[in-house]
C-alpha cells in the first residue's frame, strides 16, 4: 500500500513497532540468552511509538504540507515476518530479529529522507530511531 500522508505513516509506524514488539515478547522466554535484550526492546518499541506520536501531534500544523510529504513510500517494501519455525535455535531468532530491525531502520531512513524538506522534528526523530535500530543490529551480531 502506498503511503502519502502523515496520518498514514503514523498508522504504519504503530504497526511495525507493535508487530516487532510482539515478536520480542513472544519469543523472549524461548531463548534465555536473548530474553533480557528482547524484553527491553519490547518496552523500548512502545517508547518509540509514543515519542513519534507525541512529536506528530505537536508539529501537526506542518501537515498542511505533510499530506504530500511521503510520496514514494510503499508499505510492501517494509513488511516483515514475525514467526519463527518450530525448534528454531537462538541464532535463527537473532537473525530474524536482525532482519526485522534492518527493515524498520530502512523504513525510518526513507521516510526521513522524503520528509526532510518539509518538516524538521519528524525526520530528526525518525533518524534517531533508525540509529537505535542500527545499534540493535550490531548488538545482534554477537549472537
Amino acid at each position, binding site marked *: 500500500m502506498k503511503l502519502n500522508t502523515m*496520518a*498514514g505513516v503514523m498508522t504504519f509506524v504503530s504497526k511495525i513497532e507493535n508487530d516487532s514488539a510482539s515478536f520480542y515478547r513472544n519469543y523472549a522466554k524461548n531463548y534465555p540468552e536473548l530474553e533480557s535484550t528482547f524484553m527491553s526492546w519490547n518496552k523500548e518499541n512502545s517508547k518509540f511509538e509514543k515519542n513519534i506520536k507525541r512529536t506528530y501531534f505537536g508539529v501537526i*500544523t*506542518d*501537515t*498542511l504540507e505533510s499530506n504530500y510529504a511521503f510520496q514514494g513510500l510503499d508499505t510492501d517494501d517494509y513488511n516483515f515476518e514475525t514467526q519463527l519455525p518450530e525448534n528454531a535455535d537462538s541464532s535463527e531468532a537473532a537473525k530474524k530479529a536482525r532482519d526485522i530491525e534492518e527493515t524498520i531502520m530502512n523504513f525510518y531512513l526513507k521516510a526521513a529522507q522524503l520528509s526532510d524538506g518539509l518538516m524538521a522534528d519528524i525526520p530528526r526523530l525518525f533518524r534517531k530511531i533508525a540509529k537505535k535500530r542500527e545499534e540493535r543490529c550490531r548488538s545482534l551480531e554477537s549472537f
Partner: protein
Amino acid sequence: MAARRLQNFINGEWIDASTDKFVEIINPARGTLLCEAPMSTKADVDAAVKAAQDAYPDWRNTPPVSRARYLHRLIELMEDNFNELSIVQTTEHGKTIDESRGETRRGIEMIEVASGIPSLMQGYNLEDIAHGIDEYAINQPLGVFCCIAPFNFPFMVPLWFLPFAIACGNTFVVKSSPRTPMSQVDLFKLLDEIDLPPGVVNLVNGANEAAEALMDNPQVKGVTFVGSTPVGRHIYRKCGETGKRVIVQAGAKNYVVIMPDAVLEEATMVSLLASFFGNAGQRCLSGTNLLVVGDDAAYKRFMDRFVEGASKINVGDGLDESVQMGPVQNAESKQRIIGVIEKGIAEGAKLTLDGRELNLVGDVPETCFLNPSIFENVTPDMSLAREEIFGPVASVVRAKDLDEAIDIIHDNPYGNASSIFTNNGKWSRQFQHDVNAGNIGINVGIVAPMSFFPFGGRKDSFFGTLHGQGRDVIRFFTDPKIVITRWF
C-alpha cells in the same frame, strides 16, 4: 431513528433552542446524516447574551492568573481528546484527518498564548508627567463579545477569539456555522467540563436570525466574524451603526508569484499543491491565482510539474489515510464551483486539468467531490482571476516581470495574502514592501496565521482596525483606562 439534535449551551446548561427549524448536517464524503442543528431564534440569542452579561461582573473581577488556569485545564482536556475533536471536523467538513489534526493543534496554540494573559494584558505607567503627578494606563475588559463562525475551520476560528476574550475578563457567545456546527458543540462539551462560572461562555447554533440578533443586542460590545466579503461588509456597516467593536475577516483571492529563478524542488511543489488544493481550496489563505513570471521555457518547466503533481492528488473521504484532498463541504458548493469552471471556459481560459472528471479513492458518493482543476491562459480581468472561488481551482496568469506581477496583484479587489517564490533577495524585498496585502509569504505557499502574531487582510479582505490574534486581539478585547494621580 430520529437524528441527534444539537443543543445550545447557555448559562452553563445544555438546552434546546426555541425553534422548530432544523438543518440536517450531512457528512460530505459519505452523504450520511450526522445530526440536526437548530436554527436558534432571537430569543435564544438574547438569553445567551443575558447570561454572558450577568456573568461579566464576577468574571472581570476574577484575577487574570485564575482566569488563565481555566484555560490550562481546557488545554489538558483538548490534548486528551485530540483525535476525537479532529475526527468530528473531518466528518462534518470533509477535510483530511491530517488537516483536521492541524486545525486542532492551531486551536490549542491559541489557548496556550491566551493563557499568558497576566503578562499580555498589562498596562503601562509613567511617573511625574507633571511635578508630583503620575499617570498609568489600565487595560480593562468591556463586557460581552461574540463570534460569528465560518464553516471552513469550524473548530479553530472561534478559538482565534474566545480564549483571548475570556482571558481578558470578557464573556463570550459563539454562533456556530449552520453548515458545520458539531465541532463547536464538542469544544463546548470540554468548556463545560472545566467548570467556568455559568454564562462566561455560551454557544448558540443558528444562521442569519441568530447573527442579526447578536448585532442588534445592545449588550454585545463587539463582534468578530470570519466569512465572505458581502456578509462581512454588512456586519461591518451594522456594527458601525450600533457602536460595536468589530473584526471582520473576509474573502480573498490570493496570488502566488513564481519567479524564473524559483527553486523548483519537491518541497516547492508540495508547498504549492498544499496552498492551492489543501482543505479543497476552502481557505481564505489558499493560493488561487498562480502568477508565473518568465519566458515560455521557464513557464513550461514549471507548469509540467505543477499539473502533474495536481493530477496525482488522491481525492476521497478524509478519514481514509491515503487521501490528500477531501470533498468540498456540500453539494451546493460543488455546483457553484462547476459553474465557475464553466464560466472560465466561456471567458476563453484553457482548462488544462478538469477536476469535474472525477477520480476518487474508495467507494464514495460523487455528490460533493471535485478533483483539482487548473486553468491556463487566464487574464487578470477574467472572473476566474477576480472572484473568490473557494474550491480546488487554480488559475494561471502570466506576467513579463515582477513590476507587472505586482500591478496585477494590486488590480485585484482583495488583499488577504500573496506569496513569492524566488531566490532573489531584491525581488523578495520589493514584493514584501510593495504588495498591498495583510500577509506576505516568501517561498511559503500558505501564510498560516500564528496565535502570537496578528492576522488580517487588507482591501476587501478585512474590515476593522485591530486584527485577530497576537497583541492586536488583546487590544480589541480591552480598553485602556487612563488614571492620573496626585497625592497631597
